[in-house]
């Protein structure tokens, strides 16, 4: 059995969303001559955005069910795959526009993917620009067990631990949805603490730092004290940064605990109970023996969740599992950990 926790169907184009928008929004799209909401996080022709053999001659990668089945589900023997749609909803500045398009994206995903392919599950895209509207969107889909997670981006207006976002976590916890934080940014803040970098290579590399920031924020603000059953999944984070980050956070926590007295467990313990990470990309060392050392540094075999990150180009052929993983861990990563993470994944779908 294989559970793929991070795949990325593309919205073919803006026109594809029009049927799922209210009439007035359809008219506004037309009147204003709106462009596609394509984020610079994944430039269309960048080698990372789509693997060469997954890049169609025309149109976007992963834009049709045929592509998704033939390139991703069938070759990897995938039983279940979670769709994380990276359409640039979070980049918009208008809360209402973001809400309208988030709803359209989710409707498209439900009708054109989930209804037609029983192996697919999805994350709910939310208009994070307005927490109330984000909660409304969660509630809209909460009754549909095929939605298993709420999708947020690694960089936004504020660190995700801040209390303004807690209604989202309350809604997720209420409905046993996980919170998926995926690489990407609203670009409402510069991608680094020293402003905008010159190259895309830097921007994509900086995603790992954004995850570190978010993990610190979620832990320090006490999100897991308030919502002890909430699981946060870090998607496409690179993950090998985790041990060093936790060493540093734990060291400072021991001295600065008084600033955040609700944090009454070490960050390592909190991660073990509440945080998971998808496998691809694995920013690993060149030598697979060293990768085993990194995995030992995680001090838990429950943290990693299998992912292909389809159609992003993270590996070639079917080598989604980096070499160096012990067999027992493979089974955990492929099946057991995803099943333990996504409460809704094991529920029957009518």
């Amino acid at each position, binding site marked *: 059995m294989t559970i793929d926790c991070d795949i990325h169907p593309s919205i073919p184009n803006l026109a594809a969303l029009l049927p799922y928008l209210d009439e007035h929004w359809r008219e506004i799209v037309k009147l204003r001559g709106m462009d596609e909401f394509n984020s610079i996080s994944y430039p269309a022709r960048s080698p990372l955005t789509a693997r060469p053999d997954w890049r169609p001659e025309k149109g976007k990668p992963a834009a049709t069910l045929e592509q998704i089945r033939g390139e991703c589900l069938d070759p990897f023997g995938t039983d279940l795959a979670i769709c994380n749609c990276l359409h640039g909803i979070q980049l918009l500045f208008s809360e209402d526009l973001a809400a309208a398009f988030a709803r359209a994206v989710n409707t498209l995903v439900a009708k054109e993917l989930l209804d037609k392919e029983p192996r697919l599950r999805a994350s709910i895209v939310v208009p994070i620009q307005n927490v109330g509207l984000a909660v409304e969107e969660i509630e809209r889909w909460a009754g549909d067990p095929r939605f298993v997670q709420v999708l947020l981006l690694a960089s936004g207006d504020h660190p995700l631990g801040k209390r303004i976002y807690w209604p989202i976590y309350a809604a997720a916890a209420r409905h046993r949805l996980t919170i998926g934080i995926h690489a990407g940014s609203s670009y409402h803040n510069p991608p680094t603490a020293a402003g905008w970098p010159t190259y895309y290579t830097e921007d994509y590399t900086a995603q790992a730092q954004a995850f570190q920031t978010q993990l610190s924020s979620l832990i320090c603000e006490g999100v897991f004290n308030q919502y002890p059953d909430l699981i946060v999944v870090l998607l496409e984070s690179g993950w090998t940064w985790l041990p060093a980050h936790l060493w540093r956070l734990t060291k400072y926590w*021991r*001295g600065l605990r008084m600033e955040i007295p609700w944090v009454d467990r070490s960050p390592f313990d909190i991660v073990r109970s509440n945080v998971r990470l998808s496998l691809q990309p694995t920013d690993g060392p060149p030598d697979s023996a060293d990768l085993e050392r990194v995995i030992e540094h995680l001090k838990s075999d429950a943290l990693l969740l299998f992912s292909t990150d389809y159609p992003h180009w993270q590996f070639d052929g079917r080598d989604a599992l980096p070499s160096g993983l012990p067999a027992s861990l493979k089974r955990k990563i492929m099946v057991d950990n995803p099943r333990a993470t996504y409460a809704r994944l094991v529920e029957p779908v009518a």
Partner: protein
Amino acid sequence: MTQHVVAPVAEVPPGSHKLYTVKGRPIAVFKVDGEYFGMLDRCPHQGGSLCAGVVSGVLVSGKPGTYRLERNGELVRCPWHGWEFDIRTGQSYCDPAKIRGKSYPMSVASGAAVSEGPYVAETVPVRVEQDYIVVEM
């Protein structure tokens, strides 16, 4: 184990702490609520002098955004990294099961008792009319 005379009780008034050397070892003596407590004057983390730290309470929280100061006067914060130790037990607050300062049992004995022995008073002149802080080590 021997009982060592540390100092006359008057040297460590309530709420204060002071550094002594007993058997060549630096011992921080704290007075909390009428009782004396002794700790090796070396933080188990990196060796900061606990006696140079500040005595405070422990900040606890029922939930994020709430703060409560408890047991004020019973915790010492290392002067370097701010790690907190329970003066009564030596236990660290951040990882009580694994990290603790070394504590020594302290008591008070009268000058008369101290004069009789079997106490060891290395450098402390003992007078019968005074009470003394005594450490077992």
